[in-house]
């Protein structure tokens, strides 16, 4: 579920972790929380297997992204399925859209 990669960015070598969500996201994931506590590089969350997300799941994502931001960890979401992406779109959470790659400033849609 977890995978480590070395990513070269300029002179510094950053560690990139990736984590595949095991299925529907109906509550916070301890594994990710633990990872977040120890990680120093970037984190990529793979949504391939996540076909449903609950309000609790959304709230956890938002809160986790806040923690990541305060630690300077960049989190990105990959392979978000359309039904979950639609939830993100309707939910209007900037940090979640940011993790989906939407620039924080500038025109958005």
């Amino acid at each position: 579920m977890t995978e480590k990669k070395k990513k070269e960015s300029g002179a510094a070598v950053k560690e990139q972790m990736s984590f595949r969500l095991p299925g529907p996201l109906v509550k916070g994931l301890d594994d990710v929380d633990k990872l977040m506590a120890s990680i120093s590089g970037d984190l990529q969350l793979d949504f391939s297997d996540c076909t449903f997300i609950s309000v609790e799941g959304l709230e956890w994502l938002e809160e986790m992204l806040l923690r990541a931001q305060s630690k300077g960890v960049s989190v990105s979401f990959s392979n978000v399925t359309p039904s979950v992406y639609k939830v993100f779109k309707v939910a209007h959470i900037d940090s979640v859209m940011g993790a989906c790659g939407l620039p924080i400033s500038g025109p958005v849609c």
Partner: protein
Amino acid sequence: MTTAVKDNDTSLMERVNHLTRQARLAAAVFSQYSQEDVDRIVKAMTAAAIENVEKLARAACDETRMGLFEDKMLKNFVASEFHYHQIKDKKTVGIIREFPEDNMVEIAEPVGVILALSPVTNPTSTVIFKSLAAAKTRNSIIFSPHLMAADASNLAARVVYEAAIEAGAPKGFIGWVEKSSRLRRETELMMVHPEVDLIFATGGTQMVKAACSSGKPVLGVGSGNTPVYVHKSTNVRQAAMDIIISKTFDNGTECPSEQTLVVDREIADSLIQQFKDYGCHDCSDEEVVKVAETIIDARTGGMNYRMVGQPANFIAEKAGITVAPETKILLCQMKGDLRQHKLAVEKLMPVLSYVVVDSVEDGLNRALDVNYAGGTGHTAGIFSEDEDVIEQFGTFINAGRIIVNSPTSIGGLGGIYNNLNTTLSFGCGTGGGNITTDNVGIKNLLNYKRVPRRKHFTLSFQTTKNIYINPGSIDHLRTIKTKRAFVVTSRSAARRGHLSMVLERLPQDCRVDVFSEVGAEPEWSTIEQALQVMSQSQPDTVIALGGGSVLDAAKVMRLFHDYPDLKLKEIAFNFLDFRHRMAEFPKGVKTQLVAIPTTSGTGSEVTPFAVLKDTKSQRKLSLIDETLLPTVAIIDANLTKSLPRDITSDTAFDALTHALEALVSTVASDYTDGLAFESMRLIFEALPEVLKNPTNVVWRHKLHNASCLAGMAIGNASVGVNHALAHSLGGHFDVPHGRANGVFLISTLQYNASIPHKFMVQSCYPLWVADEKYARAAQFLGLDEDGNLAGKGKGEKPNASNIKQLNLALRRAIYDLSIQCGQPMSIAELGISQENFAAAMPDLVRGAFEDMAVRTNPAVPLFEDLKDLFINAYAPRQRP
């Protein structure tokens, strides 16, 4: 509405943000729920509401001190049981409706976060109703209750919410504003909050108004003032009982309840007596004044809110009048002008005003007075056995629900007395400042995404039924059944001996009239002349003998002879799409039309077209309809043998243009393609031979057939830009039609084979294939690369790499044919000076642009395109 957030609003704003945030997340999550999920949740909510109907009714009565506990319970049942029964099987997720005939489906999209106001009069039932509706449509809902009923409303919200969560609903999809002194302010902030998508406003006029000025979409309701006309035909006992049931329901708090009765004099006494027998009190004139002073707020002219939902005895006591214990309703007769009477307004209490009228007209007018006094668009009622009176009432009264022979309050709720949708929100349409007159419900809480599929028209093929095609086929005239024939022809037909060929062959006992006044361009005045003769002779057969103009004229004569009342204006509308045209032609014709062409060009003998000039306006009118198709066509080449060389060539080039334009038309089909190909081939083969040997009937026969085949092709696929240019040029400079076509051919072939500046809008033309079609024509003609007729079968099959070459070959072949026939290929060759041409340019371009021929061209010819096409056709051409 602008709402500035003040400092002391900060904590309020936090609450508002929290509530809307919860609702927003829930709405987002709800988007993933299936119909089964939603139905399970709604069922659980309904069950919880039914379990609590009594508790919630009690809470509402205790808190508001309004209405009647038992009726509040019934309303809670309506909002849960009845509402559930109505919505449980409705589709609200995914594809919710299919329209197979329109090839379209509707897919539901939730509206999102709803801010719902709930009124003091129905604090719990409204919440139950709206919660179920929101869950069924996968929306989040935040309740802003009336301050005087907030605890009861919020209790109802909590009951259904907890059941919903238990059944798997998203957390926070129902929210509510807690009772506090800042409730109103909190609601105002919510109304303009960016996370609120829709305001569902059922409540006092002020709150609905505030909602409407929030800038958000609003499902509002208007206030009521229900007039009920009691017509003399009604059963008085039933009317009295129904009205009592209705007006006393929840002590009159239901806004669709009866406010003023309009009673026919014939039954007034018996109706009032019936009310009295059932326990109502009919107030004396003095008592009416006292009641009015008590229940009407002198300052506003509206009802005194302290009296709303109070029992009749309480009101009587306050008014200082003595009535029997347990009086049901205080009846107040309004004398004098109803429009100035204090009591002619909404009274949500058991006080019922009435007027007595002397006729249906008077009754309808008084009902209108009440209807337009504060309750427009809401509810009205009628008791009558006279269907005509009921229909008149429905026509004149403006009300979203017009309840017939039943109680208006419970009737308005829907489900109990009728099949109206169950609701506690009564849309009043624009009369009440609302967007809908619906009994508002789940239908109004969805966005409807329409998914229409591409329209494919049924293409068909029609032509003249009987076509006689060999030389000598004019003999067919000997066998036609006719007693009275009307021969339409031109003067030249007589000169060329054609007329006598026809007359000799008609049956001996047939009376024949001949009309030979048709000129080069048929005019409406000529048609009228002919119609006069026809009205005398009453022909059973019209025989058209001549070129295209004679045939066109005869088609119109036959139609107007059969339908003398037809108006030319009404069948000559211009149109964008034949299938949507405004012109309405009659169905079928009676008189048979035998078309005998004497030129090989227009193909009019097999087309449903006729072009004529309106004598008054001097405008060309194009008529298109099946009723213009001749019954019989006789394609006898003997009649073309004497055709002069120039006309032979001009008309053949018209036919060639028909074939080429039908081929690339946006409505071309395999049927018309085949005709177009063969027609072209025959022209390429026969025209040079005919010009060499004008009397050789075999080649004349081939050319005559080519013209007829091309006619069938355009009769079904129509023509294109070349004809538009030719019509405009020909009309302006008096150039014969075929010759005008010829000068543009090479330009339009190149134009249509190039990627269009603008593709034609045509649903049944999904692929632009004009260049391929021309290439296939080149292949069919057996052209070699240089455009020479290499012989059948030697043509190259079009592919991506040779399309351009084949197109060029086709243009070269047309150039060569024109040279061979001496056919002009440029406007300069027609003797039109450069100055005259330049001066006419704006008119020429406009004329071509407005021509209906361009409608089926594969490219939309823009103004500039048309101008270029004219300019490029001026100078003599070089071989392409």
